[in-house]
């Protein structure tokens, strides 16, 4: 194991939240103070490059979304150190959205018993947008997602919601509650779109370390982050920028549910 002179961090802003952070600087500055070493931190809009960079020892710490972490662990033995806390939870939910005036669909049951509905979601690689809802549906009795629904992958949670709003899709799946994002453009959205159900909880974003990072350094990093929990000033920063209320230690086992879900769909992501 080796210890670098500068700690390099990559931050993938959570997609499954209505407020997205576009800077990691405040965190990096404090961390640098605590560790007594230079910390170089950048925001990255896609986790694939970050995961590869961690696998190649180019980046030490990655703020990875749950699915990204699971993949990174599988590919490059990336290790999870910490996870974020939002309003007391270490997990969040995904929701099923339907037009409020749609009387035929009122629960996930109705979806399972339907045929040929158009299902809009952002991205197959999104835990809240696709993987967890898909898992939920299969658990509830859907045999073949591809034949029972017409898939409409539209790039983002908000677009998926708009597809439902416009009648282009019968239902959509997104994080809880993606409608907040659209409220400025569509003030009535909460009246026009109803939520008919939620998935099982999804673990929050991770703070992970590249394989082979010096153990002492890792421990220092963990301690430094945990110390933010006792620092009111820092808690305020975490809340206002990242919507975090705290940071907690995490273990690979916390992500078992993501791993299972991912493995269920890993071979079968090429939906037409």
């Amino acid at each position, binding site marked *: 194991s080796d210890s670098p002179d500068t700690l390099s961090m*990559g931050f993938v802003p959570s997609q499954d939240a209505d407020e997205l952070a576009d800077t990691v600087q405040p965190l990096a500055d404090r961390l640098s103070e605590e560790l007594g070493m230079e910390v170089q931190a950048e925001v990255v809009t896609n986790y694939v*490059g970050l995961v*590869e960079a961690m696998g190649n020892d*180019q980046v030490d710490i990655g703020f990875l979304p749950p699915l990204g972490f699971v993949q990174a662990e599988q590919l490059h033995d990336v290790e999870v150190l910490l996870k974020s806390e939002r309003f007391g939870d270490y997990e969040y939910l995904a929701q099923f959205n339907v037009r409020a005036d749609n009387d035929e669909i009122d629960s996930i049951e109705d979806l399972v018993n339907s045929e040929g509905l158009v299902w809009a979601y952002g991205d197959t690689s999104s835990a809240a947008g696709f993987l967890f809802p898909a898992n939920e549906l299969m658990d509830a009795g859907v045999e073949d997602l591809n034949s029972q629904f017409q898939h409409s992958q539209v790039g983002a949670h908000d677009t998926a919601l708009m597809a439902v709003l416009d009648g282009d899709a019968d239902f959509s799946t997104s994080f809880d509650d993606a409608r907040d994002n659209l409220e*400025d453009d569509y003030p009535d959205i909460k009246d026009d779109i109803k939520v008919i159900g939620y998935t099982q909880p999804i673990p929050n974003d991770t703070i992970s370390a590249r394989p082979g990072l010096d153990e002492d350094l890792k421990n220092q990093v963990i301690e430094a982050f945990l110390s933010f929990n006792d620092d009111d000033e820092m808690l305020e920063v975490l809340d206002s920028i990242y919507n975090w209320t705290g940071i907690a230690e995490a273990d690979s086992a916390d992500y078992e549910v993501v791993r299972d879900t991912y493995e269920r769909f890993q071979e079968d992501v090429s939906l037409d």
Partner: protein
Amino acid sequence: MREIEITKPKKPPMYWVKLGGIVAFIIIAYSVAFTNLDLESAFRWEQASTMLQRLILGPFTDAAAIERIPELFMMMMETVAIAYAGVLAGSILAIPFAFFASRNIAKRGSIGGKGVLNGIRSFPELLFAIIFVSAVGIGPLAGVLAITINSVGMLGKLYSEVIESIDQKPLEALRASGAGKIQVIWYGVLPQVLPEFMSYALYRYEIDLRSATVLGMVGAGGLGAPLIIASRSREWEQVGMMLLIIIVVVTLVDILSRNIRKRIV
């Protein structure tokens, strides 16, 4: 006065067959396109208008956006530097590629040259970004490299087309005086094409000042990531402000480059 009749030259024997083939292909291509696509659309101006208003008027009225101007401007300057380093390297590297891909210079070898350029362009920008991040880590350098190679692909093609369409007569004169290949290029081709090269390079620079995807992807800093994140979270005032800043900078660059060009050409 007597009428003058001149017979038009005869078309080559396969002319009509070829023409028919081409017309048939075009008709098929379009009918496939029209039948395969659902081109229905309903304009919903009221719904989009809130969004457009936020995007266009937002930057001038939204306090949060105005407050961020200095910060966003500094980010833009980062982008300006990254794009500059990338495009300058790319626009120079593209020149040899372009000559190898030009039929009037490289003759048969141009097939290879064109192939290489096509290959570079077929490689998704995203993938270049991923590769460079995994090779040199996140940060501006990966951005510079990604911009460089993407510029080579595009500029190499545009350059080679300029080279293929120059006035051949001066080259003839140089060849007639026994000048070598490189000398012909240096004294006959470059003076003719440099102004166009320059304007394409500047155009590419402009593209890279705006294209956020690659820079956001590799964590290069600059305005790339904020722009993508702001539009993902539908903060149109912020998006509008960023676009406004980009427009101002691009316009400045445009004016500056036009003046430089005037002095050189």
